[in-house]
């Protein structure tokens, strides 16, 4: 049984939870796998803490919590402070370098992507930073297939914004560096 656990976290408004939903949707609807998505967020509309936990497996997910993720996708320094220490030994970190300055030495497999500035300056849609992160994740891991993730994103973004989001995804896929 393969079971991969992921934490994706950021600040309220960055779209971490939505990105987690897209991963789960890609796995279940397009890759024919099983996924469990859970989430937590503080009560602020913007700026509070937000996180999603996604488990993707070949069989139905039994235990639904993520305690030590294999993958941490961090969109803010707060996410590192909360979750970096929970990473499994040998786990990988994918981080937005525009938002994060300090990472603990204990983390080895680090992938870096300036997602916020790519979204703001190249896609011209700041809200697509989470999609840039998904592009990076897709390049660095085999959690879900590229076809599945692109299909899930297209299904879940507002109509008329598909092209911008696909640009964001592609830039994340191409620009991620590290490990």
């Amino acid at each position: 049984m393969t079971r991969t656990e992921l934490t994706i976290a950021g600040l309220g408004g960055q779209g971490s939870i939505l990105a987690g939903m897209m991963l789960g949707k890609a796995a279940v609807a397009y890759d024919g796998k099983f996924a469990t998505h859970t989430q937590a967020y503080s009560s602020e509309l913007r700026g509070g803490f937000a996180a999603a936990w996604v488990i993707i497996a070949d069989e139905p997910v039994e235990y639904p919590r993520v305690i030590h993720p294999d993958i941490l996708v961090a969109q803010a320094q707060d996410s590192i402070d909360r979750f970096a220490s929970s990473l499994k030994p040998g786990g990988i970190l994918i981080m937005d370098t525009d938002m994060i300055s300090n990472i603990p030495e204990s983390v080895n497999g680090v992938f870096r992507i300036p997602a916020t500035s790519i979204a703001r300056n190249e896609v011209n849609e700041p809200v697509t930073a989470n999609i840039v992160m998904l592009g990076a994740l897709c390049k660095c891991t085999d959690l879900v297939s590229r076809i599945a993730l692109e299909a899930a994103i297209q299904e879940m973004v507002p109509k008329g914004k598909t092209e911008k989001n696909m640009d964001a995804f592609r830039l994340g896929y191409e620009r991620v560096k590290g490990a």
Partner: protein
Amino acid sequence: MIKARTALAGTHFDMGNWACAEGAIAAGCNFVAGYPITPASEVANYMAKRLPQVGGIFLQTEDEIAAICSVIGASWAGCRALTVTSGPGISLMQENIGFAVSTETPIVIIDVQRLGPSTGVPSIGMAGDIVQVARGSHGDYQIIALCPESPQEMFDLTIRAFNIAETYRVPVFLMADGFIGHMREQIIIPPADQIDLVERRVPTVADPMKRQDFLDIGVAPMPVFGKGLQAHVTSSCHDEHGMRNLTEPAVMHRYVMNPIQKILTHRDQIVEVREDYVNADLVLVTYGTVSRSARAAARLARNQGLRVGTLRLITCWPFPEEAIRKAASRVNNLLVLENNSGQLYPYIRAEAAHASRVEFLGPQFLGQIHDPNAILEKVKEMLA
């Protein structure tokens, strides 16, 4: 049994609360009243959009008291009616849950439980209402409550809740929690023609004095309004025709006991458990979301050569005492796992302690379901 008229057939990836709402739609629910509350709001929100599409009505009331009263009224008007809330809302509804019991009104109440007491933590699930739903209204009565462990079961058991409500003319609780209410997973919705629904039995004789409308242990047909049937519906002590009677002890006795017996004599048809403990030295007894931790822990234990099984109470009310006694007679150790301080534990111990050792383990932090490794440690301690 009839077949469902509509169902959003297919494989979905969505929230437990969404699955619950679609389960209600498939079950033919055509009236929902509610007042928004985290972590249950998505059910009401979605129903406000979805019900008009299938010819139903969503009513946002001024509070939870009005919500349950509307739902009881709608049921008496012939609707398949549901209300949805969380613990604080259940507290407000308790008086009228008794009214529904007393008047033998089929309704479904969804409790997406959250951490309490009081306002507590809105977004964190905890099984804190398990006893209050069975014992929270005054007087003496029995209740039926089902405990889903996944979004898929929030779909399946919502349909079952409607079927039980209609079969026995009783309020039925679905005891979800914030964790699975907000959890997204694969949800498979079968085609409508594969979903069986219980149709409400309605009498044809107009005169209530020539019918038995209440206090039938075998379940009386329900004289819903709007069909030219005269009927008298009161929550005060009444006889078989619904006529108020505050003078005869024999009627008072039947008024309390027959609705209780109506549930207890059908216990075997109502109670559903999942047993997986053949040749076990220890059985993990659970209900709701924690059942998933228990199965994961049992797997870990078996991988280490420990004979650990599971007993899951899908129905927690009426209390599955026979299933507990059976487990106690076959297995020497019972470990009860609940996401609370031990609410069903005394009930389980009462049925099991004569035959086996019974212990309790809560999660490390209430509101976070048990880590399977913590369960395994306790198992090792008990089997040492």
